């Protein structure tokens, strides 16, 4: 990226660029949509440490440590990641920082790729930590720099909250140069950094006093922007919602909040007095609206704008139409009938076959967060719970303890998720000698977020080799007596392994060993094809849900036969094992074809 150029960057890339320009020396995080690309986009930098941590809490610990060492530190995660990191987060607000510490949290309104829709702004208030809300790529870079400045000026961690639409929105960004900020060194200060009750008690008033100063700052800050000249009503808004309002009401009076915690309530009050009706347009929770109401200012918002899902220009237009600000909308043209297209596991995904086996066994399956969560959907339909990172094992322990499960209890968890939050659960399974089986679906990457490295892969984010965690040895060291590794592409072997592991009394672990077919490198073996003459149209192969297996033009007894898309088929052979009439065979390679 050329300094001074105008580049088209995504919000995430812009944050990363902002951190680079801010002279950040340590950037850490745990992958999670929609935050992942922040670190990935600077993985190739040699002038800073860019690392994946095993989980968000560790990431924040690392970043806080770096900060105390005098290096500017960036930590990134998705909204639910902050739940994991919240333990450190809440107390980091007490300790304050050394050099600047910025926590970027990407929310996912609409739950495009998440298990809930929580609003990070609530954490800002709970922790007493300032929160900035950029609304596009350009602001994302700008606000990151401001966040570091605030962090150091006020001795506090700073939250930068984006949403999917900000993180994954590309806009024009002007590229600046990197500031040279060498680490200033660690200064011993136990009263500030050792949060024993006696010290912490002293830090609580410091935090509250800091908040007051931050409120003064935001009242005067250029982060709060007033625009428009249309009298009659005004709109307080922040983040991406700001653009939707501008889109719908180009000339309206708008108070845009660049920092949404703490709030510039004096400016809001002044703004409210200049208009007849005051609206708040914010995504998800009525964070700003409640605060304004609590300040005794009349405001409208939640009545007109849904708390469920994402806002959009159309939703904002609809809200203002209901409020009588805009004329009523003619109802939009209905889409022509089309077909639902939920996400599916990739062709050749090594996660799919074990779930077929679990379905066959009739196991009660506690699931976890990752691609394999898609196994909950038809046609696999073989997952019964999915709550949070690492929850599967503890839940399995509990489910087994309840005696309420009708089949064997199996926890399924990915390699990265296991290292993230599964290990304590397995320790508990050993500790309580729970009669469960833990299936670790080791595909050697964090697949769901696009294939990141983790402590089990032996490679760092910046591409250098490191010591991988040995999952099998780890499980054995935890005290699991029955640990086995199986090739998930071999259905019979997987069946046998799971059956034996389930038969084992006490906790057992089965580890699958096929890599993700998409990352780190695309795996494409010789594709397979269906011999139409042999296909009985039983569609048994379709119980796998492989996207490469689709309908054929031909039918048998009124039912569609199948074909395999040779471009996307990875040659994993699982469907071959599912085809009783042996109608699936490999496409011959050129040499074979020539010898026919």
């Amino acid at each position, binding site marked *: 990226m050329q300094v001074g150029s105008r580049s088209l960057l995504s919000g995430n890339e812009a944050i990363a660029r902002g951190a680079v320009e801010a002279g950040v020396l340590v950037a850490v995080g745990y992958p999670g949509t929609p935050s992942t690309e922040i670190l990935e986009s600077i993985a190739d930098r040699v002038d800073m440490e860019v690392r994946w941590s095993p989980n968000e809490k560790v990431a924040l610990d690392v970043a806080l440590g770096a900060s105390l060492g005098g290096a500017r530190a960036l930590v990134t995660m998705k909204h639910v990641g902050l739940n994991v990191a919240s333990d450190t987060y809440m107390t980091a607000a007490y300790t304050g920082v050394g050099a600047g510490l910025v926590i970027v949290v990407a929310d996912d309104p609409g739950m495009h790729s998440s298990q809930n829709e929580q609003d990070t702004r609530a954490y800002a208030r709970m922790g007493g930590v300032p929160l900035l809300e950029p609304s596009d790529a350009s602001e994302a870079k700008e606000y990151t720099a401001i966040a570091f400045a605030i962090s150091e000026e006020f001795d506090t961690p700073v939250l930068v909250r984006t949403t999917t639409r900000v993180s994954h929105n590309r806009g024009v960004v002007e590229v600046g140069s990197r500031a040279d900020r060498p680490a200033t060194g660690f200064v011993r200060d136990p009263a500030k950094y050792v949060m024993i009750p006696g010290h912490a008690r002293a830090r609580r008033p410091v935090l509250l006093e800091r908040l007051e100063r931050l409120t003064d700052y935001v009242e005067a800050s250029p982060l709060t922007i007033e625009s428009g000249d249309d009298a009659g009503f005004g709109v307080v808004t922040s983040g991406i919602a700001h653009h939707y309002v501008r889109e719908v009401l180009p000339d309206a009076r708008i108070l845009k909040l660049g920092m949404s915690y703490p709030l510039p309530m004096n400016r809001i009050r002044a703004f409210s007095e200049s208009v007849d009706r005051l609206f708040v347009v914010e995504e998800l929770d009525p964070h700003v609206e409640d605060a304004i109401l609590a300040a005794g200012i009349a405001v409208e918002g939640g009545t007109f704008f849904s708390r469920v899902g994402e806002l959009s220009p159309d939703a904002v237009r609809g809200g203002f139409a209901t409020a009588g600000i805009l004329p009523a909308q003619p109802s*939009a043209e209905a889409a022509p009938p089309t*077909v639902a297209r939920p996400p599916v596991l990739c062709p050749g995904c090594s996660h799919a076959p074990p779930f077929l086996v679990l379905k066959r066994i009739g196991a009660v399956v506690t699931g976890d967060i990752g691609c394999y969560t898609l196994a909950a959907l038809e046609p696999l339909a073989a997952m019964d719970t999915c709550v949070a990172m690492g929850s599967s094992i503890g839940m399995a322990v509990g489910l087994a303890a309840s005696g309420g499960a009708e089949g064997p209890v199996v926890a399924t968890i990915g390699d990265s998720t296991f290292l993230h939050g599964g290990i304590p659960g397995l320790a508990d399974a050993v500790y309580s000698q729970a009669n469960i089986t833990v299936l670790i679906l080791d595909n050697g990457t964090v697949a769901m977020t696009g294939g990141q490295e983790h402590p089990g892969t032996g490679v760092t984010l910046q591409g250098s080799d490191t010591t991988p965690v040995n999952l099998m040895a780890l499980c054995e060291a935890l005290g699991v007596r029955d640990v086995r590794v199986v090739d998930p592409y071999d259905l019979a072997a997987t069946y046998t392994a799971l059956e034996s592991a389930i038969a084992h009394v006490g906790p057992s672990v089965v580890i699958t060993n096929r890599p993700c077919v998409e990352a780190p490198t695309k795996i494409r073996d010789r594709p397979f094809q269906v011999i139409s003459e042999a296909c*009985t149209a039983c569609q*048994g192969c379709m119980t796998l849900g492989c996207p490469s297996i689709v309908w054929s033009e031909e039918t048998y007894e009124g039912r569609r036969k199948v074909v395999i898309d040779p471009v996307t088929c990875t040659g994993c052979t699982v469907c071959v094992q*599912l085809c009783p009439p042996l109608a699936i065979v490999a496409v011959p390679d050129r040499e074979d074809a020539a010898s026919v």
Partner: protein
Amino acid sequence: MSSSSRGLLLAGVGGQGVVLASMIVADALLRAGHDVKQSEVHGMAQRGGSVFSHIRWGSKVDSPLVPLGSAEVLAAFEWAEALRWVPYVQEGGAVVADIRTIVPPGACSDRRSWSTRYPDVDAQVFDCRHLKTRLIDATATATELGNVRAANSVILGSLAAFLDIDLLHWEAAIEGLVPRGTEEVNLAAFRAGREVADARLPRLASAPEGFSGPHEIDIRHEWCKGCDICSRVCPEYCLELDVDGKLAVVNAKACTGCRLCELLCPDFAIEIHPPPAPVVLGAPVLSR
């Protein structure tokens, strides 16, 4: 209505390269001197799900999202996705659609009651909106040019025909963003896409008669020798041998009537009977 911001949509299926294509469009617009915002969703949706990208441009762009009914062009990389996103297109706008069909696995089983129907490829669905349509077979065109993976550039070429951007900016954007070594074929595909004629529509992709309900499994126990082949081949695990080696129907409702057990029973001991009255399938599943 928005000031000067214009909008277009790209839509396709996860894995088709919608994101890269939209980056090329955004880059070309940027090179043409516009303010540009482009927004897509990725993550889980990329796993074979529906992927779309909004692109807005003009002197100053606010919302990265295109309001409903305001896009000038929709470029769809797949037929069902064209239908899904067409409400974003403004009256009289344009639709560039690849006639390629990717039937999602969930809609690909006509043996289960949850079958959904894949829409027919038929340009007439756009008539009511007075849309300009261009239905192309990008895969065929790219294959003719020697690289099937350049199909997306064919679609971009067709899209470009509806936008007033200098060819130079397009070419620069393509050269800058496509994988190294594929610049030439992608440029050729792009040029071909500008000229490409409407495709001949494929045969209608309608599903055959829908699932008729669980079938009845009739076992002739006196002929059964308990070899277990049937239970091992049943895709729905309807059959099992009990401890005495006697065959039993354990999940009658799941039988889809595939007849594998019947065809592969060496002892003629299984008969599958269709249900008396066919179950009428529900209306096709609509998105949004």
